[in-house]
């Protein structure tokens, strides 16, 4: 019944289909392509009337931002913050998700509401008084305060996600370990954490990207020495003459993790989302 005959009509349809598809791909890919290539261009190839597609590659722009603008230091800041946030979210997120899925908790409704709705509070509504609090106790412009803010704000969503993974682990596993005299601490660290490894991998990716990309918390809570990349880039724009070469180089570095992750996980992105649904 559904066998496709390649009549003129269907060829026409497929042509339209591919044209639409290529337009969409162009819209979504060209900006990234353009930023990355611009960062590799010489000055003459950037400031032109017509976009230049064939050009000789230069690393000058990268060299310049690292040498002149101390970019390495902020790159390190971003990396330290994002890595710490990832580790904290992974451990405490799993801990909370485990507690929520294994015990009947007094006031469960309120606890879950408190956790889930926390994510809905816009950062801009928290920042006026959190900023005052942080500056009163003197932790503004440290990496600590940013790590705390990113980790805490990122946790609720991860708890929600990990709860789904813990649910799939049979309770018998807990019981067997407890009967053998395992403490809860060891049960969690050595049995539960490894058995939700796929969930933790997803958590790691999402947390790292969240912290790496985040702008508003970083903008308010860091001033000078502990700035992260998005903040540095936003300040760099404000220069009198917009330095597109330097900016595109910075943007490329900022984009790199997300591009790598998208390519590395593309199978799981689609399959992970659809597989669970198909089974259900």
């Amino acid at each position, binding site marked *: 019944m559904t066998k496709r005959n390649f009549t003129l009509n269907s060829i026409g349809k497929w042509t339209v289909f591919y044209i639409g598809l290529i337009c969409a791909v162009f819209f979504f890919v060209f900006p990234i392509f353009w930023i990355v290539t611009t960062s590799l261009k010489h000055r003459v190839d950037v400031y032109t009337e017509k976009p230049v597609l064939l050009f000789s590659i230069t690393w000058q722009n990268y060299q310049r931002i690292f040498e002149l603008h101390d970019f390495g230091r902020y790159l390190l800041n971003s990396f330290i913050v994002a890595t710490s946030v990832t580790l904290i979210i992974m451990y405490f997120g799993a801990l909370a998700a485990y507690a929520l899925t294994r015990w009947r908790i007094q006031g469960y409704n309120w606890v*879950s509401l408190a956790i889930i709705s926390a994510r809905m509070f816009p950062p801009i509504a928290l920042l*006026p008084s959190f900023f005052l609090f942080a500056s009163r106790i003197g932790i503004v412009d440290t990496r600590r305060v940013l790590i705390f803010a990113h980790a805490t704000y990122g946790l609720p969503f991860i708890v*929600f996600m990990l709860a789904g993974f813990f649910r799939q682990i049979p309770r018998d596993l807990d019981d067997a370990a407890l009967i053998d005299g395992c403490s809860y601490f060891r049960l969690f660290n050595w049995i539960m954490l490894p058995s939700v490894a796929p969930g933790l991998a997803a958590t790691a990716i999402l947390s790292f990207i969240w912290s790496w990309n985040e702008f508003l918390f970083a903008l308010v809570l860091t001033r000078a020495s502990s700035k992260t990349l998005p903040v540095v880039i936003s300040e760099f724009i404000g220069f009198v003459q917009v330095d597109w070469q330097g900016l595109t180089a910075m943007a490329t570095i900022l984009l790199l993790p997300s591009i790598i992750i998208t390519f590395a996980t593309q199978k799981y992105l*689609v399959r992970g989302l659809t597989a669970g649904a198909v089974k259900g």
Partner: protein
Amino acid sequence: MRQRLPTISRPGFLSKGERIIRGLIRSERLIPYWMLAPLLVGLAILVYSPMIGTFALSFLRYFWNKPQQPIRWAGLNNYIDIFSESLFWQAFGNTIVFMIVSTGLSVLIGLGLAVMFDRKFPGKNVFMTLILLPMMTAPVAAALTWKFLFDGQWGAVNYFVNVMGIPNQAWLASPKLALPAIMVADIWLYAPFVFLVMFASLQALPQEPMEAARIDGGSRWQIFTRITLPLLVPNFLLIIVIRLMDTFRVFDFIYIMTNGGPGGKTETIGFLSYERTFRHFNMGQGSVIAIFILVVVLLISWYFIRILQKGLLEQVR
């Protein structure tokens, strides 16, 4: 064989306080609460106390760059000032337009792409990966990218526009075009996520109703509008709520691309709140706008919160 004695056998050596603390640590019933404690304490410090704090600040007259100036009670004056200010209402109007257009278009584009990908064709995986490429991009990088593309002098968009016979435009400096330009950037960043969610939901739909309709002679268009779309409504609502929430508090794009200009044409209330609090140092007025944003976002997200909570509840049972 050596046997370990149970350690609780000597309560006499501990003070009362110590005994209570040890009891709390050991008690099995409290274990889940210890596990939840770090998260809940964190949320209390970062989210819930500041929430109350911001609410309190909205009633004060407080410029935090002038610590020598006394903090005064302002009553409802901050609210009156803000709600009678034309810039606030302009920002509110811009935000609403931005919210509706951005949400609408990103959902339409996402759905359109999902329907396109809901079939077999050569190169499907490659195309999908390419379209998903912007999904995890940092908003700052996305904003910067589009600021560059829309640049009046060196931007690539002008080149494409010229090809179509339209003269150069100073996109982000133009009162008419600045907001739409920011919408394009926002859609570029978030439509892939909508696409991914819609695609996954399409794949997960049961095939039987469509099959039955096909056998009964329904056309493709009929099947799509009468059966597929209604089945997708719950997913639709969820994604629309997420998008509405995100677009209502839009900040990064405005900060990077236009700074609210030209002439307040791209001022949004998220950005206005930031400006008042951290550029004009006016904690009171900034907090009023922040509270306003919070109330609207919570109203929008109430539905979303209930669904998530239901999901979490199911996972316990």
